[in-house]
């Protein structure tokens, strides 16, 4: 499918767009103040953090409004900042266009809400200030990632969010599990980064530029093979960041971080960066079917894997993490389809940002109430004690399973439809995924809010304070309405088209298509099944050792086991070998040489017997040799 022309970038200055750098700068300043300020800023730290996030949301909103003021063809505004690396990236600039601005709104909007929520959630943590500093740092980096007008700056943001996620996952450093999880997240991401780095090298070698305008406008010039290579390398990067197969393993561990972090970074925003990268680099992928195919396959594989993992987790956060994987799988699938899918991918990304954040925060609120118990088998019947949380969570739940007319319904359905058009197999697999989603999400809800109380003795749950519930409410509003607003009349697709292009004939939304109905049916079945197992029936306090499939799911499809077997163990072994080789081999050689000289000296000096006559002998022989040598040389 041929993409509609992407608009060219017009340089811009002045107005909110001209000041777009403020979006990044404000939270960055916040982070800097809070980190350098130290304990002095403990009192107002959290407030400053929130303030900065909100301020940057305001800027984003203003910029958005200003952007709408331009004709669609002129909605790509470049804001040049400062000279960076002559020869590679002469000038760093920002690119404010429908795509980036939608991300900005999501990041700053949801971000602000989560900031507010965290005030309550982290109230009792001695290091709350540091927490907010990291959150601000994250927001800044994430905004840089989406606003950058070239791959290098994008990469800076890309690693920045990685750092922030590392710091936040390991926020409770004293817990070895947390520290390990943080390290794992960073290292696995690094694997992806290698892909992205090499992709950039190839891009620069091919196009002699790293700016989006310089690369994407000329994507056609490059050979098929090159594009494929670049595409796949970019995909590796995307997989790392977005926890797609085969680099998914870090996301579940990442739940060691405080829940707001899981909501903001590991659900709403950072993990979707991969989708952004693919969509942003659209022209490259469109130039190579191979890469696109791989992208879609990865997407589908991950959405199924994530869903399956989700079904078996008793840890509420891990279950949600699994579902995040799965949902991002949907987005990647859509992004792989091309212009027809981009809009749905992003749309689903945004709505997912809302309802998943909503549910994570809800989960957080539950944990808060159950003094940080995460095992759903110890929950049950919470709907009575925490009604608001329950209500908002329910909204999110309905949205994600695609309950008609809620956000998820529209966006996910859109994706399934496009996938169908693209390839039936992928489509039906996506439908299957939806069914499983219906099951595991219902399972989660039933185990948590319905059924009998299975609480600990000391647990006396209560509704969370307003500072936490208000954000929940706002998020759930988004979860209800946003989907319809974006999808109906292709509003969002048209809005995005200047940035990512669009298919010639826009898809029209018909609610009663076969796939749509099938999806609904499967979801219903899944939900019903879940009700039988976990709603109506008694939930055992300890997980029964299920069938092989269950363990398979519980063990994250043996992802970690695989990593250990393939990389960790051989790695440790290799390390030991290398160290040994270095000490014994390389250094041994050096020292051995020295030792041998010393040894030979020790032996040779025995020649110096101290007997005059032996000395005389040496002279005598020496003389003879000398004479002999003269003759030899003389008669040569």
């Amino acid at each position, binding site marked *: 499918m041929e993409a509609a022309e992407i608009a060219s970038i017009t340089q811009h200055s002045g107005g909110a767009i001209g000041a777009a750098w403020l979006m990044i700068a404000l939270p960055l300043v916040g982070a800097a103040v809070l980190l350098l300020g130290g304990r002095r800023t403990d009192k107002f730290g959290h407030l400053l953090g929130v303030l900065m996030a909100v301020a940057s949301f305001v800027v984003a909103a203003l910029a958005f409004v200003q952007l709408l003021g331009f004709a669609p063809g002129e909605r790509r505004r470049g804001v040049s900042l400062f000279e960076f690396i002559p020869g590679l990236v002469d000038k760093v600039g920002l690119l404010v266009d429908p795509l980036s601005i939608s991300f900005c709104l999501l990041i700053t909007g949801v971000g602000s809400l989560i900031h507010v929520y965290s005030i309550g959630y982290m109230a009792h943590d001695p290091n709350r200030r540091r927490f907010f500093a990291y959150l601000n740092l994250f927001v800044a980096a994430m905004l840089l990632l989406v606003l950058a007008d070239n791959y290098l700056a994008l990469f800076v943001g890309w690693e920045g969010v990685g750092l922030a996620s590392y710091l936040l996952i390991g926020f409770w450093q004293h817990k070895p599990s947390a520290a390990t999880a943080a390290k794992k997240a960073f290292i696995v991401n690094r694997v992806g980064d290698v892909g992205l780095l090499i992709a950039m090298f190839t891009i620069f070698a091919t196009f002699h530029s790293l700016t989006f305008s310089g690369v994407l406008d000329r994507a056609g010039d490059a050979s098929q093979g090159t594009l494929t290579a670049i595409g796949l390398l970019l995909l590796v990067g995307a997989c790392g960041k977005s926890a797609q197969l085969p680099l998914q393993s870090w996301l579940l561990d990442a739940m060691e971080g405080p829940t707001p972090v899981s909501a903001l970074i590991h659900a709403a925003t950072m993990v979707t960066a991969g989708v952004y990268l693919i969509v942003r680099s659209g022209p490259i992928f469109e130039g190579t079917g191979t890469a696109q195919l791989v992208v879609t396959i990865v997407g589908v594989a991950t959405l199924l894997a994530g869903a399956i993992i989700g079904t078996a987790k008793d840890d509420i956060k891990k279950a949600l993490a699994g579902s995040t994987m799965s949902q991002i799988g949907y987005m990647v699938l859509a992004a792989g389809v091309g212009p027809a899918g981009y809009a749905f991918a992003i749309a689903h990304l945004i709505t997912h940002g809302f309802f998943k954040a909503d549910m994570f925060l809800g989960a957080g609120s539950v944990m808060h109430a159950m003094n940080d118990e995460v095992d759903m088998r110890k929950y049950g019947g919470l709907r009575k004690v925490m009604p608001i949380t329950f209500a908002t969570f329910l909204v999110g739940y309905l949205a994600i399973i695609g309950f008609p007319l809620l956000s998820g319904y529209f966006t996910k359905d859109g994706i399934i439809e496009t996938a169908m058009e693209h390839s039936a197999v992928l489509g039906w697999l996506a439908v299957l995924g939806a069914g499983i989603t219906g099951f595991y999400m219902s399972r989660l809800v039933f185990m948590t809010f319905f059924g009998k109380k299975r609480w600990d003795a000391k647990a006396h749950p209560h509704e969370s304070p307003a500072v936490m519930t208000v954000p929940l409410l706002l998020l759930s509003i988004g979860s209800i309405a946003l989907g319809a607003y974006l999808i109906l009349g292709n509003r969002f697709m048209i809005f995005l088209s200047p940035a990512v292009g669009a298919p010639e004939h826009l898809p029209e939304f018909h609610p009663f298509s076969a796939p749509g109905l099938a999806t609904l049916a499967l979801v219903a079945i899944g939900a019903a099944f879940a009700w039988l197992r976990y709603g109506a029936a008694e939930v055992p306090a300890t997980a029964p050792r299920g069938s092989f499939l269950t363990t398979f799911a519980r063990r994250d499809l043996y992802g970690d086991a695989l990593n250990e077997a393939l990389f960790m163990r051989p790695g440790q072994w290799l390390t030991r070998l290398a160290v040994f080789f270095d000490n014994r081999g390389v250094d041994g050689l050096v020292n051995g040489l020295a030792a041998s000289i010393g040894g030979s000296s020790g032996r040779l000096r025995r020649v110096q017997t101290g007997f005059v006559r032996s000395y*005389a002998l040496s002279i005598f022989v020496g003389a003879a040799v*000398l004479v002999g040598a003269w003759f030899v040389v003389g008669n040569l």
Partner: protein
Amino acid sequence: MNGTIPAPTIEYGMLAPMLVVFGAAIVGVLVEAFAPRYLRSAIHLPITLLSLLISFVLIVWQWVEGVPTKAAAMGAIAVDGPAMFIWGTILVLAFVSVLLIKDEGHFVGAAAAVPGSAEEEQALYEGAAHTEVYPLVLFAVGGMMLFPAANDLLIAFVGLEVMSLPLYLLCGLARRRRLLSQEAAMKYFLLGAFSSAFFLYGTAMIYGYANSLDLAEIGASLGVVGGQDMLLYIGGAMIGVGLLFKIGAAPFQAWKPDVYQGAPTPITALMASGTLIAAFGALLRVFWVALGGLDWNWRPVFYGVAILTMLGGAIFAITQTDIKRMLAYSSIAHGGFLLIGVIATGSAPAQNTSALSGILFYLVAYGFTTVGAFAVVTMVRDAGGEAWHLSRWAGLGKRSPLLAGVFAFFLLAFAGIPLTSGFFGKYAVFQAAVTGGALPLVIVGAVASAVAAFFYVRVIVLMFFSDPAADGPSVVLPSRGTAAVVGLAALATVVLGVFPQPVLDLAHSAAQSLFVR
């Protein structure tokens, strides 16, 4: 051959420097004979120092007047640029060494007395001292001057003996460790005599070949006489043996460590500097003037000798635990490096000049450093006299940082670290060799110096990085003499290491005239 013997003409002016030294030596003997004991050393010292000084002044004066270009004394003694440069160097170093010698406590009271016997006690009690030391040293210095200047193999032989005989005796005069000292004297004497016999036999062969002992004439006869190569080869080789022995080149190096260790340290200093310089002067003269046309034969032989000497000296030294032995081996290694320079002399005059001046500079640099080093050795003592064993040097850097620092500096100079005289000496020789096409030899030299660096560094480690032994050696307050020696040597090492140009010019202009033919 008409039966009338023409009266020889002697250019006393040209020979004056040497004659002064010999004269002073003879006066010294007379002093020994007639002056009362308590006066002797008071008389000797000024005579000795003065004579050396005058001789040096004469050389300078003559240098300024203009270097003579013809050999003196009927062509027996060549007073040319190199000779005068070498004379000057030897005189300065001898002067310095005498300052060391004059310090009490180096020499035995009565050499003839059996160690530990009553009469030795008596001698010590009377504070008797062997004041003969001074005339002996003067004779040795005279020999050192005659040897490299000899333009005639016979004179060379005489010079060799005049230089060596006093040294044989001096080696036996150490106050402490009498047995070692006597043993050193005997070894040095027997082996020296042995080697000079070789030298003499070689001379005889050459005489047989060329019917002359005049180096120039021998050189001239090389191409002419035919069918006698056997004599020539044997002669050349055996003369080589005699000379290489004095240099201490492998495989004739065996005597050096033993003698250097046993001899009184000031005498060791004198030998290590003076003898080596004189020997190299003679070696160059003989093999350049007389056998220059034969270099095609001797260069390859020396090639091997040089390699053997450099590596041998360096490797043997690594495991030495006696400071004096270590320095002896190091001087062997340096002899090897200098041989590279000898080999570097080639056909083109410019090449010879650079090689020769390189060697001359090296000799000056090495001479000063080595005298300084041995002077330091004299100062580090414990109950048994000088502390020779390296373990006793541990932690010296803490107890007397200045002395240890100076010594470390000397060692670095030996190792040829830049900004010390040793570096430029080595560089000059190496560069000459490379332009002379002896690149492989230079590479071996580089490797050898890397190996050699190890044991210099080891001493520094001992002095600075390891903690002092409980009953470590005490450093005696240096007498003015010793202090002056160390200071002068250090100064020379620095100056030659930073501004070598003047001395290089001197050596260069000395080498310019090459050896008279």
